[in-house]
């Protein structure tokens, strides 16, 4: 730039308006970016527009008279995902071509459209295919050279079912102790637990087994780790910051994790569903609170999972992780639902709504057919309890009958395996505390009454009859044989906070957890008959969990054969047991013998030294020999002492 010249200095300066134009050969060297920075930011970029455009295929080809109607329908469907800024319906020969272009206000909206509208069935002949415009570019420029994807090395974790192959059929259980510092896996042997694996700081809070026992999940600040196989190697890792809860699909294909920390509008991260084998994040969900974990309930075969939100039941299918039929079910007032453990049937209940009574509905999936509906009157609350195989559904109904104040409880038993699903009603006279189905049968047990007078009743659904009533359980453990309802044993484990049966039903563990009680932390092992086998003290013991077993591979016929030949097998087992028992006692006896010998030889050496020091002792005590209590009888004094024998009050009579 030329130096500015003060015009006033110029003698030739005349009082006329100064020219502010640049001289003719002036070259502007300030570029656009500097001058127009803020305006340039809003310059329309070619790229922007394309990212927000979607192409919809399989649109009905219509003539001009129906075009308006078609546009309305498309608009209605597609404006759900965002603001449509432009639309283009190319046509040829008087009909629309069958594909259209839609532009959204933002690329995210276009993505939403692709995610949700792709595959949308408009009618029988037209299922929309939606793609991003940019995808076409991507697919067209695929290189002609095929690059083989890199081969991932095979991670051999060994035999994942190794523990089931134990010849002595010992089940595993996990123990957390030293207030969470150490976690160990033990093999349950009646004599003494055998350590299978023990690690410090394996988990930061607690552990969970997968439903079939294949994986052990440990919790860490950054996520979950899954361990398994013979050596408990790390199989998989799920990165989920601040994870606090985990759930598995029954088939063990998927894991669901919850973290209260991560949740943004665009990318829901509170609940994440993972594919266990690949470790991939399959889908994320929002979650307001984890009050009723698991939020997602799985069908027994892992094909579906569902969750309840106010007035809605959302059912998703795997492996797509999309909503079944692309929409949730509107069920006004839905309070609770539960999958049958045996079939893809959901049971849910809805409370009273003005004139419509409360009802329990059984819905089959994926057909969504309501196979049974039962109306209930004056309902306060319902709880759904499925029998283990899905043969029966017990609904505990709390009602306030008309004209009364109190709450009465009924059990409505749905017989799932019978035609039309008949329902039996069992009335209960007292308040119910707990309910449980027998694992492999048709019996259930109910705890009722008011503490401390609590009673147990056993019912058999098959015979439709009550079997027995037992009462007065004051904190003791009662072992009951439910085939004939006899009490086998009553025992006690003071301050026990947990009771856990092993997966086979042979053993039960009662434990005192450090989380609830600061002393006496231990777990005790009992036989199913109530005989105490072991007391295992563990410093600051926290939690014991049995490792679940996968379902048996034996068929019904094979089990029948084994039961028939049981006598033959039991002879072999008894012999084995006797051998191991005598081996144990022999081991114990041998151990004791060695310990005694060591101790005695130590005592002998010290006794020798003691004798050698005798003269020193005499000197210290002025010649008095005090080595034995009766060494100096002469010194003893005789004293008479009184003993209190009896107290008797003898009335003297009138004085």
């Amino acid at each position, binding site marked *: 730039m030329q130096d500015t010249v003060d015009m006033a200095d110029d003698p030739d300066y005349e009082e006329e308006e100064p020219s502010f134009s640049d001289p003719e050969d002036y070259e502007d060297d300030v570029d656009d970016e500097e001058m127009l920075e803020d305006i340039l930011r809003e310059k329309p970029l070619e790229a922007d527009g394309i990212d927000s455009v979607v192409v919809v295929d399989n649109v009905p080809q219509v003539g001009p008279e129906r075009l308006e109607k078609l546009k309305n329908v498309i608009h209605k469907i597609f404006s759900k995902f965002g603001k449509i800024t432009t639309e283009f319906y190319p046509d040829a020969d008087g009909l629309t071509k069958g594909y259209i272009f839609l532009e959204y206000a933002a690329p995210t909206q276009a993505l939403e459209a692709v995610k949700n509208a792709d595959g949308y069935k408009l009618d029988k002949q037209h299922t929309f295919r939606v793609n991003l415009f940019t995808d076409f570019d991507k697919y067209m420029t695929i290189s002609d050279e095929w690059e083989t994807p890199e081969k991932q090395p095979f991670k051999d974790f060994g035999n994942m079912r190794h523990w089931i192959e134990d010849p002595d059929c010992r089940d595993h259980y996990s123990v957390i102790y030293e207030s969470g510092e150490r976690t160990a896996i033990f093999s349950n042997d009646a004599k003494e637990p055998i350590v299978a694996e023990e690690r410090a700081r394996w988990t930061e809070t607690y552990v969970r087994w997968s439903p079939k026992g294949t994986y052990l999940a440990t919790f860490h600040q950054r996520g979950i780790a899954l361990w398994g196989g013979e050596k408990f190697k790390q199989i998989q890792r799920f990165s989920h910051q601040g994870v606090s809860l985990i759930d598995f699909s029954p088939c063990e294909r998927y894991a669901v994790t919850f973290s209260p920390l991560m949740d943004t509008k665009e990318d829901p991260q509170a609940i994440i569903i993972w594919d266990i084998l690949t470790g991939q994040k399959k889908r994320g969900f929002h979650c307001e609170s984890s009050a009723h974990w698991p939020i997602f309930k799985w069908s027994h075969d892992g094909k579906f999972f569902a969750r309840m939100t106010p007035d809605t039941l959302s059912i998703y299918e795997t492996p797509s992780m999309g909503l079944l039929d692309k929409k949730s079910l509107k069920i006004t007032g839905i309070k609770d639902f539960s999958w049958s453990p045996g079939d893809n049937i959901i049971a849910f209940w809805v409370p009273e709504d003005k004139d419509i009574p409360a009802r329990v509905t059984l819905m089959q999936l994926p057909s969504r057919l309501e196979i049974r509906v039962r109306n209930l009157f004056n309902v306060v609350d319902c709880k759904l309890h499925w029998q283990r195989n899905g043969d029966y559904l017990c609904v505990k109904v709390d009602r306030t009958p008309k004209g009364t104040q109190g709450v009465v409880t009924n059990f409505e038993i749905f017989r799932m395996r019978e035609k039309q699903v008949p329902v039996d009603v069992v009335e209960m006279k007292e308040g119910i505390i707990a309910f449980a189905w027998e694992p492999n049968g048709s019996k259930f047990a109910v705890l009722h009454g008011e503490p401390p007078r609590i009673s147990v009743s056993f019912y058999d659904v098959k015979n439709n009859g009550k079997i027995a009533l037992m009462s007065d359980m004051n904190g003791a453990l009662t072992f009951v044989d439910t085939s004939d309802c006899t009490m086998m044993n009553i025992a006690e484990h*003071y301050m026990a906070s947990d009771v856990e049966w092993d997966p086979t039903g042979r053993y039960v563990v009662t434990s005192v957890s450090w989380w609830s009680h*600061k002393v006496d932390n231990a777990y005790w092992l009992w036989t199913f008959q109530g005989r105490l086998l072991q007391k295992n003290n563990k*410093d600051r013991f926290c939690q014991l969990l049995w490792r679940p077993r996968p379902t048996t591979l034996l068929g019904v016929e094979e089990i029948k054969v084994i039961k028939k030949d049981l006598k033959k097998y039991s002879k072999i087992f008894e012999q084995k047991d006797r051998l191991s028992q005598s081996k144990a006692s022999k081991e*114990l006896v041998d151990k004791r013998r060695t*310990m005694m010998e060591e101790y005695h030889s130590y005592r002998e050496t010290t006794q020798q030294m003691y004798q050698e020091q005798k003269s020193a*002792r005499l000197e210290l*005590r002025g010649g008095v020999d005090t080595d034995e209590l009766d060494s100096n009888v002469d010194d003893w004094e005789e004293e008479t*002492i009184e003993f209190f024998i009896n107290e008797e009050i003898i009335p003297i009579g009138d004085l």
Partner: protein
Amino acid sequence: MKPILLQGHERSITQIKYNREGDLLFSVAKDTVTNVWYSVNGERLGTYNGHTGAVWCVDCDWDTKNVLTGSADNSCRLWDCQTGKQLALFNTNSAVRTCGFDFSGNIIMFSTDKQMGYQCFLNFFDLRDPQQIEDNQPYQTIPCTDHKITSAVWGPLGEFVNAGHENGEINQFSAKSGEILNKAKEHTKHINDMQTSVDLTMFVTASKDNTAKLFDSTSLNHIKTFKTERPVNSAAISPIMDHVVMGGGQEAMEVTTTSTRIGKFEARFFHAAYEEEFGRVKGHFGPINCVAFHPDGKSYSSGGEDGYVRIHHFDPHYFDFELEA
């Protein structure tokens, strides 16, 4: 066995001790009282009055002439056993935690707590030198800088003192030179009590780490460990059988939140060689703070947080009991 109940204290018992012949039982407690009883029928002979704070420890010399007590009133006092008269007063700067006569009865040791800016010291007085008593000047005083002494016993011939510390360490201090002759670190927590065998060749330690351990008095070799699931407050070795008795429970602060079941606190008997528990005696209403065997091994006593001392005479079948070996 029906126990004899001694009710002479209003607060928790801190220590009980038999004299060498076993006819007398001394008990001290947090209520400042020092009692002496006939062990055969539980009749109280008398008290030694003078302390103004909780009495932590008591010992009697081999001839049952003198009694030594240490208290939180910053003093260690010497008494005439028969008359109850106070013979000497040793003032200290902090509470006296443990005290004892040596084998000859001529030398006493006591330890003071780490309190109020004062370190923990192990003091030795020779009772034959009246000057030391008058001037309150021990002939030997050993400072313990790090972890204070919580319990201590004399060696077999009065040459050294084995002291247990609040971190589980055991140090053997020479009574003549004050140097550390031996060390052992087997316990992981506070040592609550130490008691010798009747011939002084071994001693047993009771610790907050839920175990009691048996050591050789001279070499400090760790011989046996007895495991429980509660802190062990006191342990004693039977004079005639290969048995060890242990008493424990929780700290007073934690008791209210857990068990208040009557008589829940038990004394446990372990086989000394097999390290296995073989018996329990219930009866105390709170944690047991001190146990002691009668020198003839035919009875034992326990003092508890409930302020009671219980004397138990063994049934004949206790002496016949054998673990299969």
